[in-house]
């Protein structure tokens, strides 16, 4: 059927799609620049792996535990940080991502720097496909509801959203919780596929990778996140033969992308010549 190499590639595409779509909810739909998505992934990964190792729960229950664990922290972290806007929020989430990584690095329970070994391999392509479909289904349902409109309204104009009776703190925290839940799901699948976890797999670069997937595919577009995840999972593999030039080409593609199509491959059209991403770097002060 499919060779083991392609199977691994497909599984990674699936996991990355879950990561990118869940970040897209936070970044693309609600407009909150969060650069700590890998932290939620690691919370889900460690959470589900520990539950499997210590309690021997069935796979589905472990996944759910990991995702809920990540969602719980998403809400806890979201409550104070989401009062910040734009680049300030980016710096806060970046810092929190590092804190989570360093905590895992020093915790005995998670094996510290040696990592967590011996997680049973339970993730199969079928599980991944089901998880992707589940993620996309739930997120689409949310986006096409009253809650999704509140998310987008906050992205477009928080002051006006407040005037519509939208409690922006509540909805931003909700969005963080839901985003973290699915990031945790992706992390759980990752843990039970790799069978080994190391805190350094969930560093800053991993978060940036997720960010690039969403930006490349197009902010605020479900399909965009899938396409971005696919391209950025496959391209590094294709460039393996020119390994030395890999990061260079990878970087050049992104720069070129920003120059010719800043709204992403499937992104929304520009508004006043400013793509969604650019707006994060505009002055983030409330205007009246």
């Amino acid at each position, binding site marked *: 059927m499919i060779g083991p190499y392609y199977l691994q590639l497909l599984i990674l595409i699936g996991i990355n799609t879950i990561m990118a779509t869940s970040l897209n909810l936070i970044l693309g739909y609600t407009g909150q620049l969060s650069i700590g998505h890998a932290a939620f992934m690691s919370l889900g990964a460690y959470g589900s792996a520990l539950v499997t190792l210590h309690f021997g729960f069935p796979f589905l229950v472990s996944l759910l535990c990991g995702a809920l664990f990540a969602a719980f922290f998403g809400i806890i972290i979201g409550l104070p940080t989401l009062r910040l806007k734009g680049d300030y929020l980016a710096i806060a989430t970046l810092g929190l991502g590092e804190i989570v990584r360093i905590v895992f690095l020093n915790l005995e329970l998670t094996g510290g720097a040696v990592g967590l070994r011996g997680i049973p391999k339970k993730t199969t392509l079928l599980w991944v496909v089901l998880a992707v479909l589940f993620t996309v289904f739930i997120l689409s*349902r949310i986006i096409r*509801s*009253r809650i999704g*409109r509140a998310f987008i*309204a906050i992205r477009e104009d928080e002051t006006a959203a407040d*005037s519509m009776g939208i*409690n922006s703190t509540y909805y931003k925290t909700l969005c963080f919780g839901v985003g973290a839940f699915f990031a945790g799901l992706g992390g759980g699948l990752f843990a039970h596929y790799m069978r080994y976890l190391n805190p350094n797999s969930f560093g800053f670069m991993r978060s940036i990778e997720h960010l690039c997937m969403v930006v490349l595919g197009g902010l605020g577009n479900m399909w965009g996140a899938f396409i971005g995840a696919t391209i950025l999972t496959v391209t590094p593999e294709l460039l393996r033969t020119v390994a030395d030039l890999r990061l260079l080409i990878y970087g050049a593609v992104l720069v070129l992308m920003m120059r010719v199509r800043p709204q992403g491959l499937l992104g929304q059209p520009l508004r006043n010549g400013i793509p*969604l991403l650019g707006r994060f770097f505009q002055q983030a002060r409330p205007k009246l």
Partner: protein
Amino acid sequence: MHKIILKAANICHSFGGLMALKDVDFAIKSGEIVGLIGPNGAGKTTLFNLFTGHYAPTRGEILFNNLRISGLKPYQITPLGIARTFQNIRLFGQMSVLDNVLTGQHCRTRTGLFGAIIRTRSSKKEESRAHKTAQEMLHFVNLGDKKNEYASNLSYGERRRLEIARALATDPTLLLLDEPAAGMNPQETADLIELIRQIRVKMDKTILLIEHDMKVVMGISERVAVLNYGRKIAEGTPGEVQKNEAVIKAYLGESA
């Protein structure tokens, strides 16, 4: 007769050392159209922001239907029945025209995460009711055929009307319009005056508007209040205000 729905007593508001509003008393009766005028920087928009909860007054209190609203947040005040438009139009640009108005229905709907995901019967019913209201509002401001456009693609006059429709969709009893005729041509202004009249007659709303276009203010207001340097210097019928010495002085300066 008509009861007072909004009452502001001894309102003071300062930004650092700048007193934007000093001891302003203000009341609106149910069913009125009240104009709020004054030179630039007089504190008109600040007063709006206090009524809608974007600021909390430094001193004084604001009552809406006998309920103290000063200090509440905008998202808490809107459900009580105050809606507003903004001086520099604030639409959700990358949302469709219909979705913009549907957002106005946010505070009149309840569907939570569970209802949104499962699409329960009650959430479906609520959604279709919200759609119906939104469509009505769009037809009311004559934007029915534009519902699938992005809001950012509308013309200036259409955006103003869409903002009014979105505010009406929150089902307010009091509608605050911040310079609705700013930047409009004479035809658009005439249409706007007609629209505001219709809002009062057909929808039974109370309206407070800030406006620099005197034709609009004097044409539709039953009562006009004048602010200057943060103080209320006059109040009365359009005819009375136009003859008021203090108002003439504020607008034209001291006569030689």
